[in-house]
């Protein structure tokens, strides 16, 4: 066995152990310790963590700074919201959801109609964000538009969608969609069903992390990092960097769409304020704090930041904004590797104390794209 193989075998046991611990924490410990309210809050944080895994892949591994994950999150969330509204309306034999009746709309707009069917809605949640990301990614990466240009375009997309949704009264406008009664037939005011939602979110997060881990460790994952660090060289080796980037961007969008779809029933409301430019960029801070290039960093960072935000802003709403701003400045500016960067740093220190070992590659900071 070569050193690399040994390391791989070793780390897959570690990974299995890690998964087991995470599963125990999420499925046994959390439900036992937390109140129903806190558990529901944690479920919401897990949704952000799912988005963060995708951002870790696209930004940390692929070097694509996506400022518009709120778009894909929003598409998933709004489709789910529309389906839940229609399902509620169908139960009471109304032609249109309640908020439309109040607004004086008595015919269902055509773009709502497909989402009355659960399979169509679920399929759309899985396919639509990925498809939009594929189209934008194709348009952008194939033309070798990158770096700052891509960041600005993804941001503009988030702004455009938020403005579009705010202006459309038939999709709730500025206030968004809320007041869902049931989730695929299960009443949402029943605590047992809300627990179920938490378990669904937890299971989804574990699956998403496992998928991301497989991707990162595969040949594809190595190519992605190679594109981030030396795009031209990868092109000279005969690969098309555009395709590699598109895949990572599409996967990130796919994760964000699923997260959005879970967010809607868990939180009970989705509005343009949740998906615009600022929340889209705010998704990044958890990823940056946890460590953008790692697998678990984004997850822990996202949950940590969301938890801190809830705790802080309950008591000092204005202080949180200062704190968030300071986090962006300090973490991105001065500790770009995030908290995960302290691990290798400590290990390096220990290595230095021990006799030198030559069979391990040096742990270096990846260059920024």
């Amino acid at each position, binding site marked *: 066995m070569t050193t690399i193989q040994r390391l791989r075998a070793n780390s897959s046991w570690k990974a299995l152990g890690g998964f087991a611990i995470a599963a125990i924490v999420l499925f046994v410990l959390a439900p036992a310790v937390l109140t129903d309210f806190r558990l529901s809050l944690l479920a919401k944080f897990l949704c952000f963590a799912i988005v963060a895994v995708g951002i870790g892949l696209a930004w940390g591994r692929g070097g694509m*700074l996506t*400022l518009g994950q709120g778009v894909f999150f929003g598409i998933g969330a709004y489709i789910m919201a529309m389906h839940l509204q229609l399902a509620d309306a169908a139960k009471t034999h109304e032609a249109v959801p309640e908020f439309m009746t109040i607004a004086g709309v008595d015919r269902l707009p055509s773009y709502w109609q497909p989402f009355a069917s659960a399979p169509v809605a679920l399929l759309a949640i899985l396919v639509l964000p990925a498809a939009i990301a594929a189209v*934008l990614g194709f*348009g*952008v990466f194939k*033309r*070798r*538009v*990158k*770096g*700052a*240009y891509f*960041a*600005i*375009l993804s*941001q*503009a*997309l988030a*702004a*455009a*969608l938020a*403005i*579009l949704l*705010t*202006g*459309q009264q038939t999709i709730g406008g500025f206030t968004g969609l809320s007041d869902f009664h049931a989730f695929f037939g299960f009443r949402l005011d029943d605590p047992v069903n809300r627990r179920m939602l938490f378990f669904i979110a937890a299971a989804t997060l574990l699956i998403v992390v496992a998928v991301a881990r497989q991707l990162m460790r595969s040949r594809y994952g190595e190519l992605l990092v190679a594109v981030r660090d030396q795009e031209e060289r990868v092109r000279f080796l005969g690969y098309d960097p555009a395709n590699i980037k598109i895949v990572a961007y599409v996967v990130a969008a796919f994760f964000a769409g699923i997260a959005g779809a879970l967010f809607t029933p868990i939180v009970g409301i989705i509005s343009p304020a949740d998906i615009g*430019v*600022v929340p889209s*960029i705010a998704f*990044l801070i958890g990823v*940056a704090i946890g460590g953008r290039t790692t697998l678990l960093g984004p997850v822990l960072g996202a949950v940590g930041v969301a938890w801190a935000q809830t705790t802080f802003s309950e008591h000092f709403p*204005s202080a949180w*904004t*200062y704190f*968030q*701003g*300071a*986090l*962006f*400045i300090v973490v*991105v*500016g001065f500790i*770009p590797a995030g908290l995960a960067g302290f691990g290798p740093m400590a290990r390096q220190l220990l290595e230095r104390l021990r006799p030198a070992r030559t069979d391990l590659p040096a742990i270096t900071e990846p260059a*920024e*794209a």
Partner: protein
Amino acid sequence: MDVLVGQLFTGLSLGSILLLAALGLSLTFGQMGVINMAHGEFIMAGCYTTYVVEQLISATGVALIVSLFVGFLVGGLLGAALEMGLIRWMYDRPLDTLLVTFGVGLVLQQAVRDIFGAPAKNVVAPHWLTGGLTIAGTVVPKTRIFIMVLAVAAVIALAAALETTPLGRRIRAVVQNRSLAETSGVSSRLTDVSTFFIGSGLAAVAGVALTLIGSTSPTIGQSYLVDAFLVVVIGGLGQIKGTVIAAFAMGLLNSFVEYSTTATVAKVIVFIVVVIFLQARPQGLFTVRTRSLA
């Protein structure tokens, strides 16, 4: 015909606003390669400067003119402070400057909210800007004309400063070849700070102009920032000529699409057109070799 002229003026006036907002960015983003997300907050600083100056000087006509100069100074100082405090450490990481300056923007926004309160403030336009002029059968508000004149003046002043002054020569030299400029005795540090001063000052001037057409709130800068970035991207980096054309093109496109559909759909269509445009010219309308971006 009247409708056409009316939409034309709306487009030109929107274009002037975009131009004012984007002009500073074409310096800091286009020439320096720094993605300054706090640019929107510098615009906002210009708005609040106007509000404060108007509280101090009750003659609104004088207050507006004074605000233009004070605003430029306030924005410029904020920008210079940002450059010296943070950005100077990060010239090799343009994408990270984006997030760091976003953090600065959040802090500035909240600071303004805490000082002035969240509700929007109104600035009274001076009496010589009330009413409108009739041009080709359409009534055009005088404030709009003032903004157009201001935008044109700002472009001419900036272009003249870059072309003729020693500072402008230094800025161009540093942008084109930093190390050669340094060996020729140009202080690149001082030039970087000055470039930021001018770019951020122009953002605040845009803010002063914005107070004439709407009320001022802590988030006002954000609503113009995305458009301003798009203008610079379409125009081509570091090109004032490109920025001017792109700003008016976007303004006109927006106003004509908006007339046939709605304001929100227009925003989305403009975005789609921008993406399609970049297919044809990924580097923008005009390009020049500069320090490459990412």
